[in-house]
């Protein structure tokens, strides 16, 4: 099978990196607390499951809520703005500038607005992080419909609504999904980093941060493992939905 063959180098790299990691720790007597062995991280991932996994789930819910709210508003906003071409072109540079703002730095303000410990402040920060890329890409997608295709639809005496439904929306979908994938990652980052500024006792970001502060690196890394798995899960879910919806596209061979 060709497909399996393609994965061999990746598996080899994985094995080599893990072996080198374990080996280096033994060979150079690196202190356990600085860089834990991968095997220890996995062990902690399992032994501390009663605190880690619920914490992960708690943070994941924040990320998911923010993702849904932010992406939803982004799509709705872009759809409204996209109806008017001039407004769309005027909004674009502002949105791009806003995208250059380090929004995570605003986390404390969201804490002040929605409660420092409350999950709502993390949801809000995740939502703002998701909103911008989704809005910008949806708008871009709606605007990139082919003029020829629109002309063809006009030759069928199609209404604006029909052109929107049959040309603009399908053209925009790949753009939207690209943004949703980006947003899924941002949501998780937003929730975790939001918790660095204060969060519930049993939240993943707090757990990771506390672990690092008291040099309990094994727990911190295990927390990152949980975060990564959840981040991958959300990303995978979006990518899966993309496969279902955007079935026409030739397989994207690279990222």
């Amino acid at each position: 099978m060709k497909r399996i063959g393609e994965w061999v180098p990746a598996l080899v790299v994985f094995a080599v990196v893990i072996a080198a990691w374990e080996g280096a720790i033994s060979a150079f007597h690196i202190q356990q607390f600085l860089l834990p062995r991968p095997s220890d991280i996995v062990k902690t991932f399992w032994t501390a499951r009663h605190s880690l996994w619920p914490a992960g789930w708690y943070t994941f819910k924040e990320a998911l809520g923010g993702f849904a709210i932010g992406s939803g508003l982004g799509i709705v906003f872009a759809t409204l703005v996209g109806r008017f071409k001039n407004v769309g072109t005027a909004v674009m540079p502002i949105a791009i500038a806003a995208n250059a703002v380090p929004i995570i730095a605003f986390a404390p303000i969201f804490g002040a607005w929605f409660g420092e410990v409350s999950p709502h402040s993390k949801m809000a920060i995740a939502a703002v992080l998701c909103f911008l890329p989704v809005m910008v890409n949806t708008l871009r997608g709606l605007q990139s419909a082919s003029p020829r295709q629109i002309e063809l639809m006009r030759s069928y005496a199609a209404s604006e609504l029909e052109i929107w439904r049959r040309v603009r929306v399908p053209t925009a979908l790949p753009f939207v999904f690209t943004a949703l994938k980006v947003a899924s990652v941002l949501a998780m980052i937003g929730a975790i980093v939001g918790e660095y500024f204060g969060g519930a006792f049993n939240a993943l970001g707090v757990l990771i941060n506390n672990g690092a502060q008291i040099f309990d690196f094994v727990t911190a890394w295990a927390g990152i493992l949980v975060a990564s798995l959840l981040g991958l899960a959300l990303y995978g879910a979006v990518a899966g939905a993309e496969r279902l919806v955007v079935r026409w596209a030739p397989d994207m061979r690279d990222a």
Partner: protein
Amino acid sequence: MSVVEIKGVTKTFAQGNVTALEDIDLELEPGEFVSLIGPSGCGKSTLLRVIGDLTPPTSGSVTVNGKPARQARNDGDYGIVFQDAVLFDWRTVAKNIALPLEMLGWDRDRRKARVETMLDLVELRGFADHHPWQLSGGMQQRVSIARALAFEPALLLMDEPFGALDEMTRERLNLELLSIWEKLGSTVVFVTHSISEAVFLSTRVVVMSPRPGRIAGHVAIDLPFPRTVETREDPRFFELVTKVRELLRRRGEHLLPEEEELLEADR
């Protein structure tokens, strides 16, 4: 009754002050295959788009099937084929062909039956579930033709449909198009800049000249049907080609490239 009746149509583009068409009169009888030929910038594509009501004339009138062009478009009286196939990437071949049928509100079974007929017609049976990117350029253009003909419009507008294809594919598609036309008996307006293609396909060639776009003359093509590969070797074929070429040479001063671009941009 004429299928298309153009009276005194003038089209100027505000931008650049270009007169693309000036005082065009043209009538098309049912079942005619008329080619519009001329150098780049003679307004042949613009004329086609005026007939299709995709761009309004500055003055003059266009009727299609006895109705104003606007109403003919709203009634779905014509099918159109562009230089590139303009297929929807997100639809399969079958669904691309079914698109105008959906717009006309045909039910599922009727659409399915018609799509199969059309696939047979353009010899693409077996590609129904392929997506456009999986087809060659020639196959894509055949899908585009099938889509244009799917609802049996009385009029077929073709804007250099084979311009982007290689000579071999082009000649094969010419034969296919003729056999489809003979089967369906629709009226065709065919824009091209290939003299031999125009002569081979048409019952009448309309030669246009540029700056401003005008009709330089008509050449009736009396080659017998069905036309085959041998038609291209017929001495009469060469006579007609020469006739068209002379008309073109007499009237056709070529535009400079940048002027062509200007016109392209306006369209």
